[in-house]
């Protein structure tokens, strides 16, 4: 596509302080999920389930890459990076990120996200739903290490696990 209208830039998010002097920077999670699940619905009707998941993964990855550039690009030490990530996820209300295993040399990680923005409290659906988060984590890890990563959600609130658990493996 040559003529892009929606190419992402942080400027597109606008000046929130200026725009919402009374309502502020936060909104209800219901509204966030309303938007996400209506997007899923319409996308699935137009593009099918697999394509919809792929779009969510890629959008999450773009978000992770952009957030890395904005917030973490100066950090060189891995543990510093993880700490900063934990703090940012918490401050922004994305979720409580915790590390279960981290082997930087092998490029193998197990992370959990509690109180996840996308899925915590959802009804049991029998399938993992945090595709956007998978992409998000992949974008962050790829940006930090410079290697491509495969991120899978192996436990999800939606499968009755109460904690979202992700494995991330470097693709070699």
């Amino acid at each position: 596509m040559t003529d892009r209208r929606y190419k992402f830039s942080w400027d597109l998010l606008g000046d929130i302080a200026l725009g919402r002097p009374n309502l502020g920077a936060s909104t209800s999670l219901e509204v966030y999920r309303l938007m996400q699940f209506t997007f899923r619905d319409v996308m699935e009707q137009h593009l099918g389930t697999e394509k919809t998941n792929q779009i969510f993964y890629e959008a999450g990855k773009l978000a992770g890459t952009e957030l890395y550039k904005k917030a973490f690009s100066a950090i060189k030490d891995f543990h510093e990076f993880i700490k900063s990530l934990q703090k940012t996820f918490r401050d922004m209300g994305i979720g409580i990120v915790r590390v279960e295993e981290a082997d930087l040399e092998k490029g193998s990680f197990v992370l959990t996200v509690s109180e996840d923005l996308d899925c915590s409290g959802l009804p049991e659906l029998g399938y993992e739903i945090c595709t956007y988060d998978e992409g998000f984590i992949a974008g962050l890890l790829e940006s930090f290490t410079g290697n491509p990563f495969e991120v899978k959600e192996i436990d999800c609130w939606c499968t009755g696990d109460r904690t979202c658990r992700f494995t991330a493996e470097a693709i070699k």
Partner: protein
Amino acid sequence: MSLAEEFAIVDELSKLVLDMLMLSKPPDVPERFASIDSLQTLHANLLSLRDFLSAAANGDLSPNINFKGYIGGTLKMLQANLRHMTWQTKMVAAGDFTQRIEFMGDFANSFNAMVIQLDLTLKEVMRKDAELKKTNTELLREITIRRQAEAALLESEEAFKTMAITDSLTGLYNRRHFNHRAETEISRALRHKRPLSVIMLDIDFFKRVNDTYGHHSGDLVLQMVANILKESLRSSDIPARYGGEEFIILLPDATAVNAATIAETLRKRIETATVKGEKCTIKITSSFGVNDHLAKASSKSTEKILSEFIDKADQALYLAKKSGRNKVTVYNNTKGDGGSLLV
């Protein structure tokens, strides 16, 4: 099926579940219920629960909990908490004392208190270590300063000692030190019955040098003679400036004949040497008196023996002066105590 029969089946199934919970070896699903899927799932979940709990009780957090729902989810939360705690402990061990555990009640509080205490203790240890290193450095510096001061003191002491025994113009021993050394040598010569000689040396017409060329030139002449003595003598010989333009040399283990030969060498070297004055070149000569006659120890003091010993050389020198200067004269005692002088 009668109500009693139905009750009996429920009872059997309840006991099966209870046995799954209670027995150390879990029972299998009875053959006749094997086709009931929900019972198979319940059985599998309970087996999985047993495996996880047994492993966790032994500290192994790796088994997967492969069933969902409230119990499975809760166990996964617990597993996630414990695994995360393990990772945090590793981070603390690697020196990251900012790690804090959440959501685990008393355990979290205790862990966090321990990490904070560890951090404080380590900081205190490091502070004390730094303090100790600083004190050590200061101490080392203090020691160096003291050593330097000690060395400087020794050096100045040495310089002072040298100054006290040396004639500052010529660098030769002064008269006082010569006498001291000479008394020692006399005692030794008498004790071991070894020969000992003394040479008195006087620069001829030195007053004329001073009057004609000035005191500075006179000093240069004295230094020149002193240098010739230093260069020509053996290390065991003891030359000294005896006063004015007079020099004296003590020669252990040398007879008058040996000493006269040495004196003759010195005479020639002085005669041929020159000193560059301000306007012209100065040449000088010198006269020598030699003596090796040493009184017997007997009743005399070493001091007295020394003064007589030198006096005899002086008499020989007097004779050298009287008979024309620039020559070596040896004291001869063969004719009795007054003695005659041999050229």
